[in-house]
């Protein structure tokens, strides 16, 4: 019987082998490198040396939380407004939202630079109006703005997907039973779209905290985020171990926050909708 069962699902075998080789093993290697020195001997030094990077950790977490929060503030009403549009319009709006999402991250970030650079559009407009210049590239605000710009569609998409599935009759029922529009929003729409919000938050937070291109370009190299630090460690074989340690700690941090978040979202529908 067991043999028969195995045979039935044999089609999954190549995938399982592939996953073990190229998903599980690489992660084990990260752990291995994080806990060994260059010669392969066990050490905790990489982990303890992370104290030097405390500031980077704090800054990365802070900036990505801010960016995620702004994305939520902008994205939630946007998703809601799209669901209230006629169905044919909804498709069009989602296409408009997907186009930047499928456009390469480097290009999107680079287009931000075209706007914010010292000789860019904003400063040219300011100069034309005789309002002086503002230096945008290199500020933390520019990095947060870049994250919001790059990842906003990832917030809107899952929220929209969940919201558009809400039964319209529930909203009507709430109104009939005497809810004000605000109450309908808070008591019906928000709770029912929570799973979308949670996957939206995840989909914005994870790339924000691990980005290195946005901070390199829009941060102008004035400060480092976690992604930059990891990337720099992997430029040189001698610092692979420290890089692995940072990557490992970041991954654990993300896993913990995902686990905490998933406790709030009860159904796993809409978790991954692209």
């Amino acid at each position, binding site marked *: 019987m067991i043999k028969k069962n195995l045979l039935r*699902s044999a*089609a999954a075998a190549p995938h399982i082998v*592939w996953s073990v080789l190229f998903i599980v093993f690489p992660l084990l290697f990260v752990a291995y490198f994080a806990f060994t020195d260059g010669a392969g001997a066990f050490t905790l030094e990489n982990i303890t040396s992370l104290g030097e990077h405390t500031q980077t950790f704090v800054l990365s977490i802070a900036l990505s939380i801010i960016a995620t929060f702004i994305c939520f503030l902008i994205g939630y009403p946007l998703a809601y407004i799209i669901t209230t549009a006629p169905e044919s319009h909804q498709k069009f709006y989602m296409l408009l939202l997907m186009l930047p999402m499928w456009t390469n991250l*480097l290009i999107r970030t680079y*287009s931000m630079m075209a706007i914010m650079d010292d000789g860019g559009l904003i400063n040219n407009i300011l100069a034309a109006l005789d309002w002086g210049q503002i230096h945008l590239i290199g500020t933390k605000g520019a990095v947060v703005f870049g994250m919001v710009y790059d990842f906003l569609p990832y917030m809107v998409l899952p929220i929209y997907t969940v919201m558009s599935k809400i039964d319209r009759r529930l909203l009507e029922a709430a109104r009939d039973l005497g809810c004000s529009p605000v109450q309908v929003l808070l008591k019906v729409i928000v709770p029912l779209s929570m799973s979308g919000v949670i996957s939206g938050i995840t989909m914005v937070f994870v790339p924000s905290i691990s980005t290195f291109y946005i901070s390199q370009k829009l941060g102008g190299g004035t400060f480092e985020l976690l992604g930059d630090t990891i990337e720099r460690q992997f430029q040189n074989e001698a610092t692979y171990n420290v890089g692995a340690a940072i990557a490992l700690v970041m991954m654990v941090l993300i896993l913990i926050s995902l686990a905490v978040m998933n406790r709030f979202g009860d159904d796993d529908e809409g978790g991954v909708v692209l």
Partner: protein
Amino acid sequence: MKLFSRLYLILIFALLYIPIGVLILFSFNSTANTGMLTGLSLYWYKELFSSPDTFVALKNTLVLALSAACISTVIGTAAAVGISRMKSKWAKKSVQSVTNIPMMNPDIVTGVSMMLLFVFVGGMLGLTEKLSFITLLIAHVTFCLPYVILSIQPRLRQMDKSLPEAARDLGCTPLQSFFKVELPTIMGGVVSGFLMAFTLSLDDFVISYFTTGSSYQTLPLMIYSMTKKEVKPDIYALSTLIILSVLVLLIITNVISARNEKRSRKEKK
């Protein structure tokens, strides 16, 4: 729709599209100035196409995306069918969770983890070029697989389970039943999985950055090295062309999925 909602939509979409619009506009600038339009020309496109690197990178990107999409679609389709046939809930769940790891993990972690594996194994085998097209391809297949599987699974769940059973009863071998019954039913999911894998592979920068060797450059990697130097509108020209291709691809996928929907609605009737 109320006035406020409409204004809000316009504002957000304007914010999303202004940078892209500026980029496209300045790709037609006649000088290297990226803040002032001095005149329209196709100079930067000519410049872009006169460099053989562009074509090599384009060819590399397409070869990689096509091979990654094909391999991940074949493995992923088989996996989705295999997973759906699994009896044990525990086995199902654990395969699924491992599959989803590359989707949940930040790209940079997936990238460096694979790089460590490749460098370690390459070192053991005594290779001089530890990272190459092969390692890049393996990495791309790996991060495409979960998306392929996820786009096929809903179709499998919707499929009438008695169909493959009937095929078996009527004398089909398991392989025949797969090609004659299961595959046609899930074809829509397979196609969208393939397109998704293709687009993801085209688009990827972070994972490629860590897993490719110096000899194999793709378009995103080329953009990255171009943006390391000074700002020049040839990147704008390249970006414009990429944005236009993405637009065409998106429209095609949308038309396909709209057609599929229509068909499945008709079938339901």
